[in-house]
């Protein structure tokens, strides 16, 4: 009965179900790995942006303006163009430009500056009075960073990473459509090029569910960390 209904509604999804699961899996892997690496680079960069910004604990005009400008340049390049522009770099790093591996490099390059800026803005919300209090208690800059800024800003960092992961899911679908595998590739190849509309619809619904899940989990963690 259920099978018959599905067969009627989404015949192609049933036919290509194994391919869809494979694509879904690829999306998880790409978003997971690139999200992790981009966070590991982006969060410290965001922190450096913050503390070197004017009037902050380690104010440094040179570091701040160089870092800030590089991030702005990368953020202003449309992602589709970035993928094409860094092909030689991608090939140099992972040896290929297609598949999950080929998608990872542009995704990391594309989303790291985004995370860095988001983290900077998130950590600006940490009360400056608290930093002054720590300074008045004789804390060193390192103590202020690790014992004050990071714990105090953690809910905001989680929030920033959540937003970044969601745009990363969008980027990964885009990377997929130009040979990166995953749900984007699946939707374009089967849904768009083969005119199988049900595949397109189901893929969109899947992406919607993933985004909603990421957002809810992020919100939940952020709330748990807020006292």
């Amino acid at each position, binding site marked *: 009965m259920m099978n018959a209904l599905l067969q009627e509604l989404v015949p192609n999804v049933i036919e290509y179900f194994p391919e869809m699961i494979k694509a879904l899996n690829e999306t998880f892997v790409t978003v997971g790995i690139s999200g992790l690496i981009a966070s590991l680079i982006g969060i410290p960069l965001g922190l450096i942006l913050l503390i070197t910004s004017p009037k902050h604990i380690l104010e440094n005009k040179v570091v701040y303006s160089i870092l800030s400008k590089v991030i702005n340049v990368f953020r202003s390049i449309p992602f589709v163009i970035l993928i094409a522009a860094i092909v030689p770099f991608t090939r140099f790093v992972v040896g290929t430009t297609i598949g999950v591996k080929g998608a990872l490099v542009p995704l990391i390059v594309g989303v790291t500056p985004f995370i860095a800026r988001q983290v900077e803005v998130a950590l600006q919300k940490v*009360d400056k*009075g*608290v930093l*002054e*209090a*720590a*300074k*008045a*208690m*004789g*804390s*060193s800059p390192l*103590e202020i960073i690790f*014992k*004050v800024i990071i*714990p*105090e800003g*953690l809910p905001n960092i989680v929030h920033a990473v959540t937003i970044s992961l969601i745009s990363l899911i969008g980027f990964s679908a885009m990377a997929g459509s130009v040979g990166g595998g995953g749900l984007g590739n699946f939707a374009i190849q089967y849904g768009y090029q083969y005119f199988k509309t049900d595949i397109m619809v189901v893929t969109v619904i899947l992406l919607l569910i993933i985004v909603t899940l990421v957002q809810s989990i992020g919100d939940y963690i952020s709330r748990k*960390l*807020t*006292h």
Partner: protein
Amino acid sequence: MIEIKNVSKTFKSKEAHVDALKNVTLTIDKGDIFGIIGYSGAGKSTLLRCINGLEVPTSGEVLLLGQDITQLKEKELRHIRKKIGMIFQHFNLMHSKTVFENIAYPLKSQKLGKSTIVNRVKDLLRLVDLEDKVNSYPSQLSGGQKQRVAIARALATNPEILLCDEATSALDPQTTQSILALLKKINKELGITIVLITHQMEVIKEICNKIAVMEHGCVLEVGQLIDVYTQPQSQITQDFLAKDMHFERLSLPHEGEIAKMLHLKYIGGSTGSPLISALSQHFKVTANITFGNIEKLQDILVGNLVIDLHGSEEEVQKALDYIRQHIEVEVIDDERIITRTSA
């Protein structure tokens, strides 16, 4: 204990050049509760931050515990800051940490055992009367409780000096009283020297033994509270003091008469003679009392009486001379007088 010598501080930016402190010299002795009063922008906050090196003076010396802290390297400065506690208007507690963790924070960087830290925090919580809030987060506390936690945190490292940056400005009058009582207790029982800045004269009157008045980056007058209070030299000090005084003229003098508003100051108890009734007996004047109060400053009673003297010019002058023989009097003849007559 703290000697501030010819300290100046200039903030430079592209647009402006602000002299926050101009050649300030102050001496704060051990055991003082030293109040610095001024309106916002007077430079008192900058001055306070020069004491623990959060601001570095453009010129001048800040001698503290025998060292000129303007000459110290960052690392030495951090070391000396551990001997100076500081509390703030907005408490500045860490929201991600419990009351216990907040108070333990300054102890963590000292090589202390866990049980030592636990005991020290317990003692401090007992001192500020918050033993039941040890596991609460700051967001669960009232303003007064937050300031108590901040005081406990500031005292954790056994400082010799406590700096208070508008510590009661965000609190209601009752809570302000309880925090001031706590500061007084800390000063008395632990012998900690307190330097506080405020724009509230009540705060100064309540706990300070010495006072400095600041305006536009300069210290206008400084001295024992009782002296500054009873003989204010500068206009701004008089303004601060007159804030809770009312110079209201309730009726205008009759034709051919003049009115003189007088502020009589009774210091240290009674004057020995019933002055006001003597006035109407000996002179042809009427004395309308428009304000009166009695305050206790450093255990000395200070009474204030404002009277509006009406009569002929000659009689009023004679009455004034008579009063001057008995007590301190100030003639109020400026815009402080508010005329409220029912026409």
